[in-house]
């Protein structure tokens, strides 16, 4: 087909991009619904219907619009949603992984600004905590991208998936580190400091306290988009261009998400100090050591690939 600075763009890339933009909210909402159902079962409850997240968002869209701060907060949340979609679009288009990571950061920053803009003490403390959370997970996200680059010789998602190397074999440490910080990103206990899925915490609803109606719905949908490509990262560790590894990759995503739900239900919330320290220690020990070893094995790896 046509050219994109030297790279051929395949029909496959365009199809996966369109599928992502259209289907990710549905898949993300469904995952959220299954999450709530499984959580309820773990607590010995029946739980809501699997489609509950869609009902919630549908309702929020129908509610009266109440905005704090002359509409600024709505604007920031919409920016967050748009950049989240773009970040995921880069990912599913097979574009540069670093681009994905930095666009994701941009989206998160817009969310923080939205929190600050409301002038509510709950939202502001939530925004501060969100910044601390970003500081905790960001190094490991970058190391994940770097690790995948060192093994596959490219930052492009397309090449990482197409490459014959089974990345997890060389990146076990990075994988563990990524699993650790994805708990923060998915807003699971013990790291759901800035806003919690569960009610009745000391910050009311943290960052989202002042959002209501359509704004809250937009935020929810942006989380759905986000979760889909965050889980896509896990897939990258398994993909090596064959169909059976793709199946194993998807199975691994399911297992990892189940683990996250288990952790969510098994832990109370920790303080931000613990979040920051533990995330950086995990990043250094697992991520750093893995990169260090790879650095010395580099010649061997690229020969093998």
């Amino acid at each position, binding site marked *: 087909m046509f050219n994109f600075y030297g790279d051929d763009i395949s029909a496959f890339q365009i199809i996966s991009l369109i599928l992502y933009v259209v289907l990710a909210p549905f898949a993300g909402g469904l995952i959220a619904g299954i999450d709530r159902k499984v959580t309820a079962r773990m607590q010995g409850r029946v739980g809501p219907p699997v489609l509950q997240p869609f009902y919630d968002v549908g309702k929020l869209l129908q*509610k009266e619009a109440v905005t704090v701060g002359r509409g600024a907060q709505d604007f920031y949340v919409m920016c967050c949603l748009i950049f989240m979609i773009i970040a995921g679009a880069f990912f599913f288009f097979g574009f540069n992984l670093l681009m994905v990571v930095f666009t994701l950061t941009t989206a998160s920053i817009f969310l923080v600004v939205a929190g600050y803009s409301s002038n509510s003490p709950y939202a502001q403390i939530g925004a501060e905590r969100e910044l601390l959370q970003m500081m905790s997970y960001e190094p490991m996200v970058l190391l994940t991208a770097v690790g995948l680059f060192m093994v596959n010789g490219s930052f492009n998602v397309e090449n990482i998936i197409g490459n014959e190397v089974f990345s997890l074999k060389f990146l076990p440490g990075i994988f563990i580190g990524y699993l650790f910080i994805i708990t923060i990103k998915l807003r699971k206990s013990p790291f759901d400091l800035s806003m919690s899925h569960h009610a009745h915490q000391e910050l009311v609803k943290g960052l989202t306290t002042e959002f209501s109606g359509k704004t809250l719905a937009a935020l929810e949908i942006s989380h759905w988009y986000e979760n889909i490509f965050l889980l896509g990262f896990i897939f990258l560790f398994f993909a090596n261009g064959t169909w059976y590894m793709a199946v194993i990759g998807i199975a691994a995503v399911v297992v990892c998400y189940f683990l996250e739900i288990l952790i969510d239900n098994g832990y109370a919330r920790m303080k931000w100090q613990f979040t920051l320290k533990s995330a950086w220690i995990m990043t250094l020990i697992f991520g750093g050591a893995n990169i260090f070893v790879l650095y010395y094995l580099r010649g061997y790896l690229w020969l093998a690939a």
Partner: protein
Amino acid sequence: MASYITKSPWIIHYDGSSCNGCDIEVLACLTPMYDVERFGIINTGNPKHADIFLVTGSVNEQNIPVVKQIYDQMPNPKVVVAIGICATSGGIFRECYNIVGGVDQVVPVDVFVPGCAARPEAIIDGVVKGLGVLAEKQAALAKGVRDAEVPGAYKYEEAAEETAEAAAEEIAEEAPEAAAEKAAEERKEEEAV
């Protein structure tokens, strides 16, 4: 467009001057035994996210602004459910010097749940009844009609203002006499010294 509000009613629970009996029962609704999340009900603790306002206990002089504040912060459509006989009429605390009466003295109430304490089944029943009202209000809102101010809902406020005015007048009338008495007392004290 289908109405989703009846499938996803989020709740905020406020304890007026309850004895905590009704509060425990409200919380019991969230436990695995009753599990109201089956109906998509979530206890948000945040008025901006809530659709249903559960009030337990009667309203007293100090929490009138709090109840109003929570009610005003909830986006339309919204429903108020008064839980327990205290929230309905003041209950056994009705005669207390600080009690104003039921929640309906301060904000318009849509559903009253009787009982002391109201049983979890009754509370769930009340919330489900509230869903019907919520659906009606949603339909009205779609046509551009906001929550109508219920006549008489704020009658307490007016009454309180009148009382305060009357009291102020009384004080003003008594003022000269009181001043004379005080001056006399001071003179006595000075003489004693």
